[in-house]
């Protein structure tokens, strides 16, 4: 990260041309210390998740019934849980699930949201009306209750199902943002200019609308990912998320529903709680950094 930023500054001092709006946004972003800290934290978690097998030799899903609720030791540095599984292994393998769920739910929501929002904002009229009424309908449904119902009906919940359920209930927020941005862009002369040279719809959407709407889209996608991680943890905590024995931060904390563990084994639930807190905080800082980078006029302190 550091090397990258110094390189940028060198390039800009020798070559004053080609300051594309994206280059400028990247520079502003790299000046934001909180956002950079967020990136560092997130990268650490991602690396831990990727190299989990190298960091621990314990299997996060297999328990040893001889080692139930053991306090930290040299072998099990965060002790073991109620089924004798290694807490540290569960923590870093849990990062895989939590980050995957957060990222893929965000990506899925992003695709639905951008496509529906773009179509609604670009074409307007009846299509717009249909999409926005559908969005209103989904927004009117209580998200948590809907998610709980679907999960309860399906019984066996996999990561794929879980992500889908979250995405099909969370897209309207993004649709509204994208549509709003498109509507305001539609009135700008450069869009008319693109029509005047004979550009087709696809080109106008991808070359003229999306690059100018990318700021709000990226910012909201980032913040969405943080929300998704919290949603996953929350649902897993009440036992309606990814089922055991798959490790997630949420169902690690759910162990602490047991008063004995809550009181006597803080090493079992504080680390996953901290992991959630740090990840969400890091992502939110990145999101704020991106917002300032893409829209320097807003909110300058």
């Amino acid at each position, binding site marked *: 990260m550091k090397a990258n930023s110094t390189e940028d500054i060198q390039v800009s001092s020798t070559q004053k041309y080609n300051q594309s709006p994206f280059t400028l946004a990247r520079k502003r972003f790299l000046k934001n210390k909180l956002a950079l800290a967020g990136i560092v934290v997130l990268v650490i978690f991602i690396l831990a998740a990727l190299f989990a097998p190298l960091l621990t030799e314990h299997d996060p899903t297999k328990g040893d019934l001889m080692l139930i609720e053991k306090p930290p030791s040299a072998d099990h540095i965060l002790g073991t849980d109620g089924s004798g599984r290694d807490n540290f292994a569960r923590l870093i393998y849990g990062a895989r699930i939590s980050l995957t769920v957060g990222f893929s739910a965000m990506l899925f929501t992003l695709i639905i949201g951008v496509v529906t929002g773009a179509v609604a904002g670009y074409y307007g009229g009846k299509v717009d009306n249909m999409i926005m009424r559908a969005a209103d309908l989904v927004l009117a449904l209580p998200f948590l209750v809907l998610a709980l119902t679907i999960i309860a009906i399906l019984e066996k919940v996999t990561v794929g199902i879980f992500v889908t359920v979250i995405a099909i209930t969370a897209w309207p927020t993004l649709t509204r943002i994208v549509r709003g941005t498109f509507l305001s862009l539609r009135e700008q*002369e450069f869009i008319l200019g693109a029509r005047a*040279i*004979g550009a087709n719809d696809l*080109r106008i959407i991808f070359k003229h609308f999306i*690059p100018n709407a990318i700021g709000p889209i990226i910012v909201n996608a980032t913040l969405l990912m943080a929300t998704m991680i919290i949603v996953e943890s929350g649902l897993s905590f009440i036992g309606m998320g990814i089922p055991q024995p798959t490790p997630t931060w949420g169902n690690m904390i759910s162990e602490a529903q047991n008063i004995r563990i809550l009181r006597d084994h803080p090493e079992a639930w504080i680390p996953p709680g901290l992991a959630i807190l740090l990840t969400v905080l890091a992502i939110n800082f990145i999101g704020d950094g991106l917002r300032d980078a893409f829209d320097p006029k807003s909110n300058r302190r």
Partner: protein
Amino acid sequence: MTIKNETKEETPVLNVRNIKKYFPIKGGVFKRTVGQLKAVDDISLSINQGETLGIVGESGSGKSTLGRVILKLLDATEGTILYKDANITSMKRNQFRPYRRNMQMVFQDPFGSLNSKMSVAELVEEPLLVQTSLSKKERQAKAIEFIEKVGLRAEDRLKYPHEFSGGQRQRISIARALITNPEFVVCDEPVSALDISIQAQVLNLMKDLQEELGLTYLFIAHDLSVVKHISDRVAVMYLGKIVEIAPTSKLFQEPAHPYTQALLSSIPTLTKKKADEPAIKLKGDIPSPANPPSGCAFRTRCPFAHERCEKEVPSLAAVGTEHEVSCHLHHD
């Protein structure tokens, strides 16, 4: 330029017949159409090869709408538009696409009319990419040619619009409009957002390019002095209608319509020559095109309005060679 006019007079580049553009006014809970905003109301005009037709009018007179309807950026409510011999009025977007190489537009707002996320090279090459099958190298070469033609440097193509001033951005717009070698260009107030000193530069550039490339301009402006500089003929618009159309020198020397006279007397002059002429001052604002006055649209502000103006809509009729005016004072 006059020679060109005489030789090609029979085939105007653009021939607009009785064009109308009404915008529905929606109201009420169910968004019913409760009225019509007559932005362009029955306009006919033709423009010859190599000619510049100036269109002047206050804001709200429908001049920009007219330009957009001609380029089919808006659909006409009624009337026909002939480009050379082709009737482009009812063409579908895909049918009309090839014509866009020949009919281009320069926009008013130098800040809003360029996509700020694209470099100058991308902006200038885009029309070629959309309209032609030239290779990347050929497009680049052509872009450099036109960037230099409008008075920018070839290196500038690596920059982005935010690195340029308003006048330079307008030059980029012009390069973008001209790169496909169009014959006809609608200039929608191309200099009204610029400083006076820059205005003259850009106008001269447009004039030079017209001579070099044999362009035909429809030049929209709200300022008669700008139009005087560049136009062969001038049409004055008021509330969606042409009230007077004449060759530039004639319009400036013998304006026939009271509105034209008022506009002319409002041009500030440095010489005292005009001081003895009575200045006509217009009262109030242009009426809403959603609810235009009966009879002559100008009668509410006309110092010579009489009974007939209230009842009868005047029509455009000749008062001299190539000079037409729509006013009851001149027609009995």
